[in-house]
């Protein structure tokens, strides 16, 4: 097993390297560029563009740009002032030495930008996932053991709706209802805040934090609830008709034990795998939820970087999520082997 994991990790590194080349090419070759005007200026003066190119390192051919991105340019002479004569070594260390460069937009180190947002996203998404699971598992189980009951039909309908409703629409409706329409009957204030993580100017309070979490978590979790409950329902249905459940019943175990100890335990195996694969979302966040609820997270950073062609930030987020995706995959495989003794990796 250890050997297997080791082998997979080495493969993962190689895969990540290949991926980084592909991503770098895709990001850079996509039409458009970071030097185009936006906001206040439609047409940017060429003198300025030439300067920006040098400052961003975009004046080099693409393969060189990739090498600089990977291993830095502190070993090569660069022409920083644009007079055509190299005048010193660069300052970039490269991704392999933990330097992801600086954001074109803010000129701050990319990792600093990410560090500012990552915790907020992990905070929101882990709670969203947890809530989704806590609701989806019981729903899935009940609708499987009472297949075609009214509850099951209602849940099935809800699931389709939940998967079909776009997050941004749901988010806006929630804000309209709980912020614009409904008022707190005692204070006359809106029932729930329209966004943000906490109320400005008030000290930390769990109550305030929770109030800010409710709407984004609902908007974010609904899709997951629908998806996980459907998933669990079908894997539970598979299990319900297995012989070992009949045996358990024949042994005289009470129904609760049959369902939860023998049934659910086995039905959860595929769900755990699925969950491991969904883990990267905890890091990358949900763009629409963050946009609508003014949540300062990774999703928004990614969206903004993509829109404004902030290549270094874009690359860092892509590489980090690719790495996490590969690791999650590995974890899923390992989990599978541990939970289902019939599976062995050699």
């Amino acid at each position, binding site marked *: 097993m250890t050997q297997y994991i080791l082998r997979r990790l080495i493969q993962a590194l190689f895969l990540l390297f290949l991926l980084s080349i592909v991503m770098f090419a895709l990001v850079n070759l996509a*039409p*458009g*560029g*970071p030097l*185009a*005007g*936006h*906001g*206040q200026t*439609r*047409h*940017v003066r*060429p*003198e*300025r*563009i030439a*300067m920006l*190119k*040098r*400052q961003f390192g975009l004046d080099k051919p693409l393969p060189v740009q990739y090498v600089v991105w990977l291993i830095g340019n502190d070993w090569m002479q660069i022409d*920083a*002032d644009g*007079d055509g004569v190299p005048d010193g070594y660069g300052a970039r260390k490269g991704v392999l030495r933990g330097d992801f460069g*600086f954001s074109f*937009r*803010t*000129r701050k180190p990319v990792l600093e*930008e990410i560090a*500012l*947002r990552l*915790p*907020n996203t*992990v*905070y929101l998404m*882990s709670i969203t996932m*947890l809530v989704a699971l806590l609701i989806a598992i019981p729903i899935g189980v009940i609708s499987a053991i009472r297949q075609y009951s009214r509850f099951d039909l209602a849940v099935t309908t809800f699931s389709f709706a939940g998967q079909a409703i776009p997050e941004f629409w749901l988010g*806006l409706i929630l*804000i309209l209802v709980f912020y*614009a329409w409904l008022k707190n009957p005692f204070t006359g204030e*809106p029932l729930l805040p*329209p*966004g*943000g*993580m*906490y109320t*400005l100017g008030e000290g*930390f309070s769990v109550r305030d*934090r929770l109030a800010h979490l409710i709407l984004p978590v609902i908007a974010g979790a609904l899709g997951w609830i629908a998806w996980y409950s459907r998933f669990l329902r079908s894997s539970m249905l598979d299990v319900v008709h297995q012989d070992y459940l009949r045996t358990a019943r024949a042994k005289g175990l009470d129904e609760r034990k049959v369902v939860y100890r023998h049934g659910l335990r086995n039905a959860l195996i595929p769900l755990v795998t699925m969950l491991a694969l969904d883990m990267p979302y*905890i890091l990358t966040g949900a763009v629409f939820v963050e*946009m*609508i609820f*003014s*949540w*300062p*997270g990774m999703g928004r*950073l990614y969206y903004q970087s993509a*829109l404004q062609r902030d290549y270094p930030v874009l690359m860092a987020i892509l590489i980090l999520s690719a790495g996490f995706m590969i690791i999650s995959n590995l974890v899923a495989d390992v*989990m599978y082997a*541990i*939970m289902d003794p019939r599976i062995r990796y050699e």
Partner: protein
Amino acid sequence: MARSKRLIWLAAAGMLIVLVFGLASCGPTVTEPAATQPEEVTPPDEVTQPGKATQPPQAAETEVVAEPAEEKTSITLVIPEDPPSFNAIVGDTGYDALVMNLVMLGLTGVDAESKVYPELAAELPTVENGGVIVDEETGTMDVTWKLRQDVQWSDGTPLTADDAVFTWEAIMNPETGTWVRGSDYVDSIEKIDDYTFVFHYNTIYPGYLTQLGGEQLVIWPAHYCSAEEGFVAWECGRQPLSTGPFVLQEWTVGDHMTFARNPNFFEPGKPAIDEIIVRIVPDDAVRKTMMINGDADLNMWATEAVIKELQDAENVEVSISPNNRWVMRLFPNQAAKGTTDPAASPHPILNDVRVRDAIRMAVDVDTIFQDIFQGFGAPVWTEFYRQPYVCDIPRPAYDPEGAMALLAEAGWVDTDGDGVRECHGCLNANEGDLMQIELYTYAEYGEPLELTQQYIAENLGAIGIEAQLSIFEGSVMWADPESGGIEQNGDFDLDLWDDGYSGTDPTDYLWELYYSEAATPGYGWNIVRWINPDFDALLDEAYTLDEARRKEIFCEMAQIMDEEVPVILLFSTVNADAHSTRLHGIQSNINDLVSWNAADWTVEE
């Protein structure tokens, strides 16, 4: 089974750890609001200045601390994204200029009537007051600036000419600086005494008044900013010292910024507001709802649709700028699509001035701006439509019949009756070619522009020109030639977008859009590749301080451009900002962001 049980516990424990990590991570942001009270004027503590004395700036602490007993006035601004920094010329997003206005000032500003006024300058240098000395022989000039002597940075250090010289040199650094208007014309900057310095120009530059001022440029503190980090990236651009009416207290990226009143502001009794909170709210619908609900006081850049909607809201008003800056326009490419030399490869359809004129006559501008742009803005048909340069050019009539006659005269006739004209004796196309063009616009503007594009296509269809529509991202449309920029590479027939200039001097703007040298890809923005030596000569001559002559020159230009139709101007879009009724003194300004006069704002419940 036992093993899998352990595993589930492990997974659960993992989830919990993630959760705790998530909650704990919010720790620092939680404590910040509480921590801000005592040290009002200190910029946030992360400021570290390598090689600089890091004495925390603490001026006049007592004055502010005395206040909290009273009810403090606080207003909330909502903007969709974080400013990249406070250095507006670098980020150029508008959001940076919005917050920059709160804390930092330049030599001058430009008001809503397009008049330049002194900010940190003691007075405006002119030829009359001896501030500007022109050497007619060499065609050069010197501009002497005198600074106010009563200004100090929020750490108590006085503002001096050293700061101005330091700022200019940082901008001009070829490695870490940036290009600004007029920088090619400045030979050097020279300090005379602590409050006086001179710009030496190698030409006569009429835009000198906003050289270190206007919308995007301010004076930076020499004792606080690090020249080593460089103008475009320096940390003091994120943790600035103030000369302006407010002081940055806190910036939680992605969430909000808090500004407190600057007790050392040089204008006595100002500002009247104690606290400004800038909240980052990405969604426009949410920002609008917050305005209506009274949780936000200012939402900048209100679009026509938003203005219309907010007109009924009780507690919201909209400030509309007295004049407009952005003019929606059509760019007809005079070179064939994909080429950039109109002489070698003229555009088969649009190189003929009669065709361009026919398109101008065929577009129903009134309907577009009345129905799609809600009647805000105004029709515009010449670049010289606003003060100080207004030229009397008669408005071209909306006349589809006339347009059709003109097209027939130009050799474009529909002989087969399919509704699309073909070339029969036209100027540049092959006999029998169809009159088909592509009409592009950009995506970010949203629905109004898309509807406009469709409506213009209908207008063109009505006179027998078939237009195919595409929409591109701005970052594709305006990218540099190497990145495949559509405009730079001339990869279009007819494009629809808005442009304009701020301030009072159009010369640089005219050069960029119409001068023949600017038609070279990667050299300028004469993307329609209009080459006109008469225009060039007039523009060269416009670099003078003789206002009367300038007016003549610009109106001669207007005449040429009216005849040649290099660009088809359509209408101006509104420049407006929505604000709560309790907030007074808001004046939308095309030459600057709405916060240009933040020192004068007041709150009245």
